[in-house]
């Protein structure tokens, strides 16, 4: 198990400084329609240094240039991006001057990379072990037998099950969290000096994320490798890194040690990021008569054998929010499909405003459909790319209320006003909107139908924290004005705290805990809710160790 710290190889050349980036400038060429191609600056004048064995967290919203900087440590520009200025010095030499041959010697030996989606990064046609040892063998660091021995030791260190034989499996035969750890083992196998982690836990469930995070942290500590840890989640980066660098629009905002950044941020923007989830939401008491009640619903796909929903019973009251929480595969979205009629339940009934809704979508009346609207997770595929914002929002008005011409246009303008976007967006196409704006248009489309209930399926998961926060505030305001109820599907407990009145926790298709927000979120907890709650990263140094120690239940898929 014991492995000499990787830094031992490099000692003597530069005792402490492993990576130094000076005044880095990265550009890309964009081709806007109807205009001449032009160069835009993605990263502008960023400098950083990293000592051996230290972890630097790079954080920022999408488009902040954090991945681009991370990849520049390997001399790589993704998707036509060019490094046009500055120096990247690793082990005392400027890798940007070393040419393609020099870069090949560097990549996979001195610097390794862990990608966001391990499932997409592994070659599905080769066994895990072949891929893990490949770089070490190619660079002549070890022969096959040594490399495999090393890999097995790493599998053990990363607490993968059956470390001796897991290498014989193919990528699709292990879970997402395991695959991410195998990828970390792959990066560590050639004993590099530096690893670039590019959002390694973003695609994972919280309950899985915590295990992967702990494994990565242990591996970094034990091998003494230095790391650049890229993420948009400040709470995650606070657990693993020694220092944090906050980036925005390709420029440095703030750089300091972890404690300082999360406790005493000096810049406004950092402060916003740190305090992002603090929406105070007073819980409303349920009325006498629920708006929607789902009774003993059991459903399966394709008339199949496995029930995806098992005997689910929940109520939603007018003007209130029911949050449905759970990890992926717990049946949250299936519940939404059953309520909307896209997946008729096998058993059970759905009552809306006192009347029983027909199970099938085709049997429902126009009014049933109007009163129950849906907002999707991916706003960009939820809108027809060939329709303008005006058409998208205007269509429900035409369809349900028969509005035409000036009357319709006036209402569309009102709705655009309500979602805090101006009339100027009427003629835009979805491709011309930002992520947050797209989601707002989807909200307006749902509101146009004057619904009594809106199903929000992970509506903020694809958005940056600050933008997501804006959407949540908007939804709360709209609820106050329009008295609309929400069924809010999410995997994020922080979101739940800021928006829910009651909560249903789902696990493997069944509701394991259900009640008002205060009931559900106060002890005593059942084992799964406890795991879910304790897995949500908190912005506190040392949280990870505490959480792991306090767990009562193993996360699924491990």
């Amino acid at each position: 198990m014991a492995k000499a710290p990787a830094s031992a190889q490099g000692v003597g050349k530069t005792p402490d400084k492993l990576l130094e980036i000076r005044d880095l400038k990265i550009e890309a060429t964009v081709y806007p329609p109807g205009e001449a191609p032009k160069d835009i600056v993605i990263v502008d004048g960023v400098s950083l240094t990293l000592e051996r064995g230290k972890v630097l967290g790079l954080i920022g919203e999408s488009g902040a240039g954090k991945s681009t900087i991370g990849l520049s440590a390997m001399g790589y520009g993704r998707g036509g991006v060019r490094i046009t200025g500055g120096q990247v010095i690793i082990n005392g030499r400027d890798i940007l001057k070393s040419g393609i041959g020099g870069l090949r010697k560097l990549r996979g030996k001195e610097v390794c990379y862990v990608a966001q989606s391990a499932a997409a990064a592994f070659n599905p046609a080769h066994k895990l072990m072949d891929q893990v040892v490949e770089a070490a063998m190619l660079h002549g660091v070890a022969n096959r037998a040594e490399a495999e021995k090393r890999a097995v030791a790493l599998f053990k260190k990363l607490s993968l099950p059956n470390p001796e034989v897991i290498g014989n499996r193919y990528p699709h035969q292990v879970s997402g969290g395991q695959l991410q750890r195998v990828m970390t083992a792959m990066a560590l196998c050639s004993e590099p000096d530096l690893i670039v982690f590019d959002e390694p836990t973003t695609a994972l469930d919280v309950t899985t994320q915590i295990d992967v995070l702990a494994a990565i942290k242990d591996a970094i500590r034990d091998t003494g490798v230095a790391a650049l840890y890229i993420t948009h989640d400040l709470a995650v980066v606070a657990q693993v890194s020694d220092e944090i660098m906050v980036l925005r629009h390709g420029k440095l905002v703030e750089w300091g040690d972890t404690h300082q950044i999360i406790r005493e941020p000096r810049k406004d923007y950092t402060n916003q990021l740190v305090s992002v989830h603090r929406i105070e939401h007073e819980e409303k008491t349920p009325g006498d008569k629920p708006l929607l009640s789902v009774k003993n619903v059991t459903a399966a796909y394709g008339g199949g054998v496995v029930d995806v929903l098992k005997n689910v019973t929940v109520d939603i009251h007018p003007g209130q929010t029911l949050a449905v929480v759970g990890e992926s595969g717990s049946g949250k979205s299936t519940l939404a499909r059953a309520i909307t009629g896209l997946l008729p339940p096998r058993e059970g009934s759905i009552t809306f405003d006192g009347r029983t809704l027909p199970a099938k979508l085709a049997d429902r009346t126009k009014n049933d459909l109007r009163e129950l609207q849906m907002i999707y997770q991916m706003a960009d595929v939820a809108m027809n790319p060939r329709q303008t914002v005006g058409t998208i929002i205007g269509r429900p008005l035409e369809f349900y209320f028969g509005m035409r011409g000036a009357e319709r246009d006036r209402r569309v303008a009102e709705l655009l006003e309500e979602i805090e976007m101006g009339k100027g967006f009427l003629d835009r196409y979805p491709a011309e909107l930002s992520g947050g704006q797209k989601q707002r248009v989807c909200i307006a489309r749902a509101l146009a139908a004057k619904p009594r209930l809106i199903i929000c399926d992970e509506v903020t998961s694809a958005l940056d924290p600050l933008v997501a926060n804006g959407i949540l505030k908007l939804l709360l305001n709209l609820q106050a004005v329009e008295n609309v109820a929400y069924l809010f599907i999410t995997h994020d407990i922080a979101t739940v705290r800021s928006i829910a009145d009651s909560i249903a926790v789902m696990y493997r298709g069944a509701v394991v805990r259900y009640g008002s927000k205060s009931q559900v979120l106060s002890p005593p907890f059942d084992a799964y809710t406890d795991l879910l709650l304790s897995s949500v990263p908190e912005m506190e140094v040392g949280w990870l160790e505490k959480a792991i120690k306090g767990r009562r239940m193993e996360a699924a898929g491990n």
Partner: protein
Amino acid sequence: MPDLKTIPIGAAIGLFLTVVLVFSAVFAQVLAPYGLSQIVGDVWEPMSAEHWLGTDNLGRDLLSRMLYGAQTTMLIAGLATALSFSLGAILGFTAAVIGGWFDMILSRLVDLLMSIPTLIFGLVVLSVLPSTVLTLILVMGILDSTRVYRLSRAVAVDINVMDFVEAAKLRGEGRGWIIFREILPNALSPLVSELGLRFIFAVLFLSALSFLGLGVQPPEADWGGMVRENKEGIVFGIPAALIPAAAIAVLAISVNLVADWILNRTTSLKGGRGNG
């Protein structure tokens, strides 16, 4: 619309030739120096100032017949393509949206039609039916629509499972709206470039039929038929058969160049205005 300034040279040549050919076909009556079946000289006269392309096997002016032939060829091919597209695309989209048994029956029927070689099938049908322009268009259109059906069903199946189509279904929209307003605009790019290729196949198909004597009937002129009428001249070194053959080739290549260019420019599902 595509920017004409950034048009690649190949596409520019293709576009120019296509426009010239279509223009001469449309205005054949105005441009042609002689009548369609007017005998103006000897058999197979060489090219001269009077007869730019010479005369054909009956002594008719070849240039005039080329122009009238272009008109007939393109009219029949164009209408057959339009028929195959409307039929194939609508059935393909409907099959994708309705799915289930409707899709199954329709797709297997199309498989059945496609398993018989088009030319042989066309020959059998046309030797039974009277050879009028209308039958030609119907036979060619229906046979070609199987290909369009395949393509548009494949494209629509992909689009049909996207969230915006689901949103429309949840809104309660009818099939007409979903097919024509949600799916069609997003399926148009691959279909438009296919349109060019299918038109060319229709021209080639018609020429083949006419060459075999089952297409356009004399005295009407069309390019395939003109190759047949003049083919005996080739052994005597007379190029009259090669000129319509060359015209078919030029039309095929130039429309292909344009279709390729359109396909290159529009192979994204990004939508919005134009494509970058």
